[in-house]
């Protein structure tokens, strides 16, 4: 079965893979923003994750350790953000931008001498006979563990935010830090933990780009994925399952335009490769205007610094 020279089963399967980096980064950022912190440094954390994950995997020979290394690298960088915004009460927008600028430079410094190396391969999980099911075998049972883990993380974030006490406290801190503080919750500590979680996710997402998607190291490898992840959080109106939908939508667009390029479509390559960015803008416009204004769902304390005066 082929449509315009593209097999739909392969298309769906590869969009799930293409969506993983932005899905991880976006679900992490969702938790951060639910805690009332706007971290615009997702791109910087992702690329730090990409390079530290790559280096770890190349030296240990283990992709799993690579993902751990990616998460740790991004968390180390995010500690700077946490220190600046939570302790020194710096402007969150500016600090996030600084994180991205610094991360892009630092990753390129770390990555010197790693160009052109192949990282160890992340194998797909063995599902035995399930893989032979037509269509669904290719779509559902042909992926590596990170694809399944990322969906599981979305489910876990949704469950924790909705049903657990920890999730309730996190949301309270994000909606009104003064009220949460008055109730005795440690606003700063909770926010720092949220920032670290967001960084771990962004770092794993970045590592997925350099270890699985590309897979090699080049400067600026994330190419705006972090910013798209930020846009997806808005698109999702801060709801975990919609993050999954958004990420798959963007994964689909990315894969489709790559396939169209490969299939020799009559649309010029340039227009195809700018399409993910244009569609991000379009989706932002649709989501932020009209009756279903996504902004109305934003955490009330988003981007505001908390200073306990008493």
């Amino acid at each position: 079965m082929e449509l315009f020279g593209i097999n739909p089963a392969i298309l769906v399967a590869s969009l799930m893979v293409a969506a993983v980096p932005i899905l991880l980064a976006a679900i992490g950022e969702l938790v951060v923003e639910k805690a009332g912190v706007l971290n615009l440094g997702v791109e910087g954390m992702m690329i730090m994750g990409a390079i530290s994950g790559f280096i770890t995997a190349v030296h240990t020979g283990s992709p799993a350790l690579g993902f751990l290394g990616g998460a740790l690298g991004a968390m180390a960088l995010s500690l700077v953000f946490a220190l600046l915004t939570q302790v020194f009460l710096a402007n969150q927008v500016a600090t996030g931008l600084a994180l991205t600028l610094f991360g892009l430079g630092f990753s390129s410094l770390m990555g010197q001498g790693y160009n052109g190396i192949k990282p160890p391969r992340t194998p797909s999980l063995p599902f035995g006979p399930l893989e032979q099911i037509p269509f669904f075998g290719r779509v559902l049972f042909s992926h590596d563990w990170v694809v399944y883990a990322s969906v599981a993380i979305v489910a876990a974030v949704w469950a924790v935010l909705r049903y657990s006490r920890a999730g309730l406290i996190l949301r309270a801190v994000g909606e009104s830090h003064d009220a949460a503080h008055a109730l005795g919750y440690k606003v700063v500590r909770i926010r720092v933990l949220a920032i670290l979680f967001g960084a771990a996710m962004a770092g794993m997402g970045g590592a997925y780009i350099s270890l699985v998607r590309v897979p090699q190291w080049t400067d600026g490898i994330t190419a705006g994925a972090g910013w798209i992840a930020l846009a997806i959080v808005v698109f999702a109106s801060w709801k975990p399952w919609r993050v999954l939908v958004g990420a798959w939508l963007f994964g689909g667009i990315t894969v489709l335009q790559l396939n169209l390029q490969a299939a020799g479509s009559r649309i010029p390559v340039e227009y195809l490769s700018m399409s993910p960015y244009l569609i991000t803008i379009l989706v932002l416009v649709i989501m932020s205007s009209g009756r279903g204004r996504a902004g109305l769902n934003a955490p009330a304390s988003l981007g505001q610094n908390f200073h306990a005066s008493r």
Partner: protein
Amino acid sequence: MLRLEKRPTPSRAWAWGTPFLAVLLTMIAGGALFAMLGKDPVAVVRTIFWDPLLGEYAFYLRGQLLVKAGPLALIAVGLALGFRAGIWNIGAEGQYIMGAIFGASVGLAVYPTESRWIFPLMILAGGFGGWLWAMIPALLKTRFNTNEILVSLMLVYVAETILSKAATGFLRNPEGAGFPGSRNFSSYPAARNPELIAGTGMHWGVVAAFIVVIAAYVLLQRHLLGFQIRLAGQAPRAARFAGVRPNRLVIFCLGASGALAGLAGLFEVTGPAGQISIDFNQGYGFTAIIVAFLGRLNPVGILLAALLMALTYVGGEMAATNLGLPSAAIRVFQGMLLFFLLAVDVLSNYRVRIAAFVKEAR
């Protein structure tokens, strides 16, 4: 334990002192970084901050300072207007590219006509290109309440794609033997942006930067619009009661910063860069964000900050060729500077008290 106590009004002394403190801290931390890379930290810091000004080859390098500081100041002044009002245009890089493409297109369209009106027309087209590119996030923000940070940033990637299309397609030099890149403006006198005084690096872009710095200073200090910009940033609610129309500010701030970034792109492409090529843009649009903050969003401060940042560029290149310092190290260094700036800013807004002492005083 140390604790922070909010100052009733930000300290003026610290407002001037923090940039210097941040530069000093960056030199120390940067020195540590250079030492970790196996370089002599003192030699590197001297190469970056001393040699371009007073070293052996300073007569040549000093000119480079203005070449680099011009576009940075031009872009950063525009960005600072928006940042003051809480309007975050971080896509200056895209507006810079579009300004260059628009301006260069006008010049290349009339090649090889000689007329004194060509260059002024290109300047207008450059500013218009940047303005147009910034109007996209501005109109989406005012009409649909779309986040201008994300839209302006996304448009950088779109602009980069258009740039590569321009360099390899519609603006490619027809006599260039198929190589990417447009005609070189240095051999087209009517559209050239030459060095005005030999050896100083002064070109029309630098002149424009000086004019813009003065104009922005007057606007912010003496004009009602400047007051409204400052008010909207510091107290958005009060601004609304005072009759400030937020949409007008968004259009003005994004438009002004876009036009200025476009001008910077046009001056760069006709002068120092010489032609439209795939990578003629050097990330000035992003570095200008650091410059704007380093200059404390104040036009005069931005001019000084742009010179300092130009120094790190020029000195960084020196350190790369003479000491083998990786060029990425300079970007890390610039990033660090922004971190330290944001960190020490706490001193101008808060007083640091020793908690035990405060208790005793009660």
